[in-house]
C-alpha cells in the first residue's frame, strides 16, 4: 500500500466526483452554503498559490484561526498542498493561549478572521517576530478565500502543482493540554493520518452517498475522521457550527433534516441529545452509524439513545491524539437492562499493534491490569520541540520498535477486548477534551491573590466529571468566585473552568510536604 498525501485524497475525489457536494455549511438564518468537489479543489489550488506567494514552503507551519467553516476546510487543504503542515487553534479559546501555540511552533502564516486580528497581533508581537497574517473579512462558504487571491493580486501561476510530501512529513500539529501548564503540540504525519483513514474505510465502508457529521472542532483529533473519510469517498461533509453543536434541540433537528448517515462525536453531546434533543419527534431513515470517542459513555444514556434510535450500529472508538483511534468496539444491538458497567474500548485497529505492560515494561498476563502501549503507522512522530517529553512518551522494545505509552491503565477481558480502568497520571476527560489538572492549577496561579491551588476531578453522574479547585489566598480578603470564574474564562479554554471553588487557609500536605490530593478527594 503506497501512502499518499492527505490532499491527494481530495484531488482524486475531485476527478472522480467533480459535481458531488463535498461540504455543506448550514447557516442559522439562511439556507446555508455548499461547495462541490471541483470547486473545493480549485479553491484550494488558488490558496496554495497564494500561500506560496506569501512565502510558505514545504515543512513550514501555517496557523488556522477561523470558526469552523468551508473556508477553514479550504485553508486546511490549501496549506497541505504547499507541503506545509496546518496548526488549527480553538477560535473560542483565549487569544493568549492561541498566540502561545502559534508562536511555539513558529508558524510562517496565520489565516484568521478580521475579528481576531488586533488582539492576536498584540499577543504575538509580545512573544517575538510576527508571522504573516492572511486576514479574511469573514467566513462565508469559501467565498472570502476564493476571492483572497484576487485581492492580493497574485499572479496566476499557470501549471503549478501541489507538493508531494514524504509519508513521514508532518500534515498537522494538534495542541493538547500539557501538565506543565502549557499546551503541547502533537505532530502527526501524512502516513499517520492516511493509515487511519484507510482503516476507517475498511471498517465503516463509506460510499459517495454518505453524509458525515462534522461535530468536533478542527483542533480536536475527531476532525480527522470527519474531514478526510468523506472527502476520500466523494461523500458529503456537513459542518456543524460551534453554537449548534452544543444545543441538543437544534442539533437533533439538524441531524434529521440534513439526513446525516454517519455521526461522530464525544459521548457528552450524545447524552445531551438523548435527554434534551427531542429525538422521538423525527424519523431517522439515513442514520447508519453512530461513532463516539473521547470519554466513557455512561451506559444509562447509551441505552436510552439506542432505544430512541435502534437502527444504526454503535461503535466506541478509543485512542489518544498521539495515535488517533487505536482500538474499537461495536456495542451490541440491544443493551441488556441490568448492565451499568461501561463498554470495553475493544480490540486494536488493523493498522496498529497494542500490548499491555507493567511499570517495568514487561508484558502482563491476560486479565491483569497494565498500561496500554501502541505501535504502528498511526503513532505520532513526537511533541513539537519537546525532546524530553517525546522520549518519555515512548518505550523501545528489543527489536527497536517504538511503542507509545498511552498512560491509560487497561486489562484484557476473556473476549480479547480491552477494558479501560483509569489513568496513571492527572489527566481527565471532560466533554471529550483531555484536561491536565496541572494546566488548570497553572492558570489559577497566575491570579495575583492565589497563594496555593490544587485541582481534583471526581466522577459525576450528570456531567461525567466534576472539577473542584481548592485555593488558599495571600490576603484575608479572597477574590469572589464570580471574579475567579471570569479570570479562568480569560485564561483557560471553557472546558477547563472548574465547577467548584473551595477556599481553605492552607492546603493539606503529605509528610514530604507535597499537596495531599488523596485527602482533598475525601474532603466533604
Amino acid at each position, binding site marked *: 500500500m503506497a501512502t499518499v498525501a492527505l490532499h491527494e485524497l481530495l484531488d482524486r475525489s475531485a476527478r472522480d466526483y467533480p459535481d458531488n457536494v463535498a461540504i455543506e455549511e448550514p447557516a*442559522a438564518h439562511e439556507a446555508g452554503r455548499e461547495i462541490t468537489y471541483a470547486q473545493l479543489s480549485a479553491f484550494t489550488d488558488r490558496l496554495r498559490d497564494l500561500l506560496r506567494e506569501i512565502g510558505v514552503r514545504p515543512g513550514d507551519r501555517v496557523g488556522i484561526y477561523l470558526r469552523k467553516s468551508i473556508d477553514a476546510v479550504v485553508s486546511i487543504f490549501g496549506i497541505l498542498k504547499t507541503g506545509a503542515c496546518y496548526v488549527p487553534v480553538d477560535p473560542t479559546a483565549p487569544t493568549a493561549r492561541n498566540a502561545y501555540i502559534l508562536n511555539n511552533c513558529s508558524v510562517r502564516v496565520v489565516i484568521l478572521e478580521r475579528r481576531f486580528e488586533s488582539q492576536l497581533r498584540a499577543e504575538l508581537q509580545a512573544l517575538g517576530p510576527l508571522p504573516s497574517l492572511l486576514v479574511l473579512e469573514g467566513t462565508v462558504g469559501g467565498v472570502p478565500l476564493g476571492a483572497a487571491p484576487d485581492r492580493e493580486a497574485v499572479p496566476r501561476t499557470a501549471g503549478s502543482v501541489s507538493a508531494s510530501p514524504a509519508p513521514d512529513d508532518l500534515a498537522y500539529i494538534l495542541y493538547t493540554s500539557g501538565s506543565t501548564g502549557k499546551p503541547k503540540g502533537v505532530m502527526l504525519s501524512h502516513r499517520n493520518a492516511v493509515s487511519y483513514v484507510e482503516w476507517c474505510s475498511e471498517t465503516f465502508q463509506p460510499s459517495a452517498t454518505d453524509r458525515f457529521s462534522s461535530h468536533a472542532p478542527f483542533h480536536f483529533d475527531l476532525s480527522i475522521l470527519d474531514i478526510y473519510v468523506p472527502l476520500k469517498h466523494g461523500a458529503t461533509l456537513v459542518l456543524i457550527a460551534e*453554537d449548534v453543536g*452544543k*444545543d*441538543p*434541540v*437544534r442539533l437533533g*433537528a439538524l441531524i434529521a433534516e440534513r439526513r446525516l448517515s454517519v455521526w461522530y462525536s464525544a459521548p457528552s453531546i450524545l447524552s*445531551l441529545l438523548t435527554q*434534551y434533543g427531542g429525538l422521538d419527534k423525527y424519523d431517522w431513515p439515513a442514520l447508519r452509524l453512530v461513532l463516539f470517542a473521547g470519554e466513557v459513555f455512561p451506559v444509562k444514556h447509551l441505552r436510552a439513545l439506542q432505544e430512541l434510535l435502534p437502527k444504526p450500529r454503535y461503535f466506541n472508538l478509543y485512542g489518544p491524539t498521539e495515535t488517533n483511534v487505536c482500538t474499537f468496539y461495536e456495542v451490541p444491538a440491544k443493551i441488556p437492562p441490568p448492565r451499568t458497567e461501561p463498554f470495553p474500548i475493544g480490540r486494536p485497529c488493523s493498522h496498529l499493534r497494542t500490548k499491555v505492560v507493567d511499570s517495568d515494561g514487561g508484558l502482563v498476563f491476560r486479565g491483569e491490569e497494565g498500561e496500554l502501549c501502541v505501535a504502528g503507522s498511526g503513532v505520532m512522530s513526537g511533541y513539537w520541540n519537546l525532546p524530553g517529553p517525546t522520549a518519555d512518551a515512548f518505550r523501545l522494545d528489543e527489536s527497536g520498535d517504538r511503542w507509545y505509552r498511552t498512560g491509560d491503565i487497561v486489562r484484557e477481558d476473556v473476549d480479547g477486548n480491552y477494558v479501560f480502568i483509569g489513568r496513571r497520571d492527572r489527566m481527565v476527560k471532560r466533554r471529550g477534551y483531555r484536561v491536565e489538572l496541572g494546566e488548570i492549577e497553572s492558570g489559577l496561579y497566575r491570579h495575583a491573590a492565589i497563594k496555593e491551588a490544587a485541582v481534583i476531578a471526581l466522577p459525576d453522574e*450528570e*456531567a461525567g466529571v466534576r472539577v473542584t479547585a481548592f485555593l488558599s489566598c495571600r490576603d484575608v480578603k479572597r477574590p*469572589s*468566585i*464570580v*471574579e475567579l*470564574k*471570569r479570570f*479562568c*474564562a480569560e485564561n483557560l479554554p*471553557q*472546558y477547563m*473552568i472548574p465547577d*467548584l*471553588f*473551595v*477556599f481553605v487557609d492552607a492546603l493539606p500536605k503529605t509528610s514530604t510536604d507535597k499537596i495531599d490530593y488523596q485527602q482533598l478527594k475525601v474532603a466533604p
Partner: protein
Amino acid sequence: MDHIEDAVQTYILKEFLPGEDPAELTDSTPLVTGGILDSLATLKLVAFLEDRFGITVQAHDVDVEHLDTIVDIAKLVRSRM
C-alpha cells in the same frame, strides 16, 4: 417586578456558584462570557426558566445575547410570558 431577577439569581447561586456571597452576583454580571454558564449549565438554566415561569424558550434564544446577564434573562422571560 423584580421577582424574576431574584429567582434567577437564587438559582444561579445555588447551582453554579455554591459558596458565593450573593452580593457578588449582580444583575449585570456576565454569565456566559464570564465563565459561569457553560453549555450544560445553560441547558439546566433554560429548563429551570421553562418550569418555573411556565414559558417556552425557543432554540434560537439560547445564546449569549439572551442569557449573558440576569437582566437579559429576565427580559427574555418577560417577553415569553
